[in-house]
């Protein structure tokens, strides 16, 4: 009788072990799944802009651009597109704070955007070996198609204004619908990292 009870105890202990093992296998699977997700989301392709080779989000579409914009890639799966663009402008050398002058010029150019507001401004943010000015902003975008039944959406964006050599400044801009912003911000970070120092 005692032997049987001992066997049953062993069996119960084994059942608990098996149970925890199944939970562990499930958790390991989820960790692997998270890795697959991260890898899929950070997929990038090489794209050329000027004489630079940059890392652009895979699956995004390259749009036609005109100076000062040298590159623009868009995610075209939503009515309000996430986009990354890169501009090259002359550096206003005669200004005491040339990067701030570029930022003010950008603000004036965007005066026509609905409810354009600057949310924050940091004057010295490291980007690789360079120091950039970082500006975050928001505005409201409405789809230009009047037949499309969509509400206007709040767009969230950020500019990185970087000196590029003696006489140029680069402006890397990222915009996304507020709800998508955290999801695609990592792709912009990868793009920024690919900018040559």
């Amino acid at each position, binding site marked *: 009788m*005692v032997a049987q009870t001992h066997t049953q105890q062993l069996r119960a202990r084994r059942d608990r072990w098996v149970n925890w093992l199944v939970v562990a296998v*499930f958790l390991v699977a989820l960790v692997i799944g998270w890795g697959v997700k991260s890898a899929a989301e950070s997929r990038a392709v090489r794209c050329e802009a000027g004489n630079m080779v940059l890392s652009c989000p895979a699956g995004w579409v390259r749009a036609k651009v005109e100076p000062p914009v040298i590159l623009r890639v868009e995610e075209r799966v939503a009515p309000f597109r996430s986009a990354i663009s890169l501009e090259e402008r002359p550096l206003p050398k005669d200004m005491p704070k040339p990067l701030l002058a570029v930022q003010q010029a950008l603000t004036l150019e965007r005066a026509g955007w609905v409810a354009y507001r600057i949310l924050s401004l940091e004057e010295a943010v490291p980007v690789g070996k360079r120091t950039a000015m970082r500006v975050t902003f928001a505005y409201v975008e409405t789809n230009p198609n009047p037949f499309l039944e969509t509400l206007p959406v709040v767009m969230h964006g950020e500019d990185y204004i970087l000196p590029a050599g003696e006489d140029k400044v680069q402006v890397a801009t990222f915009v996304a619908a507020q709800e998508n912003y955290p999801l695609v911000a990592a792709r912009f970070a990868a793009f920024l990292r690919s900018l040559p120092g």
Partner: protein
Amino acid sequence: MDRVICCVCEKPIEGESAQMGGRTYCAGCLAKVTRNRAGLWWASLLGVGALIAFVAIVAGIASATHPILQGLALDVVGAVLALVPAAIWLGFFYIQDVREPEPKGLVLSVFVLGALLAQAVGVPLVEGPFRVADWLTAGVAYHILGAIFVIGFTEQFLIYAAVRYSVYPLPEFDERVDGVIYGTAAALGYATVLNLRFVLESGGLDLVSGVIRIAVTAMALASFGGIVGYFLGRCKFEDEPAWWMPAGLALAAILDGLFVYFLGEVTTTAITLRGGGYNPWPGLLLGGGVALVTFGVLFYLIRRLRRLAPQALGA
């Protein structure tokens, strides 16, 4: 001297004892544990056939009458359609399961538990932190691995949990084949929630495509839930090694993930000027085929184990 005690009824064995899977059984319990339930297999076979017939009937009616369903009417019709697969299987099972029937309340409870776990954990996990829809189709490798490790493992673990933490320790779970019954019931609960969400969130269901998708989801999940249940059933009544149940879960999850991938492949068509992009009919064939093959294999395995039982009794 120790008396030999049956591992199920825990009573001393007076007559012949049997060794199976490292455990000692009395003749009565061995017969019960190894019993095959014809009702389960008939319900599964007839269920698949009835489901395909149901899809054909709905498709026929839809193409003959071109019903214009909108708003509440569409939601109600869609919700009813989403419940049909589970109702068919449970209905056939109850009709077939006449000799020593499985407690109806327990089968229904596990079905509801599967549905609750899907709604409370499964769907929020897959659509929330993992946001699978955003990246699953980024490439073939991502599609297969994501479908296995996120969708497959989540669904199959929750189906396992619905059985393991409810009916598994109860005395009513007294046959190996009970694992398949309860696994299938939990999986149908899970599938019903997926189907209800699909109907309510699609906002406008194409009747034919919708009913096919509903049938395919139910058949596939029921099959893979049956696999998890088979492993659970053997785990309860045999001294299987510690890796047995994790291996069963992994097998069901891999098959589930591969099914998700191949379903996407066979239902996606080329887009032409005349339309295209999605053809659900190959998906129905795939779902029906997977269900028939899976339940066929499970039937064979259970029957083979039953055939081995008399040999165990002589041991």
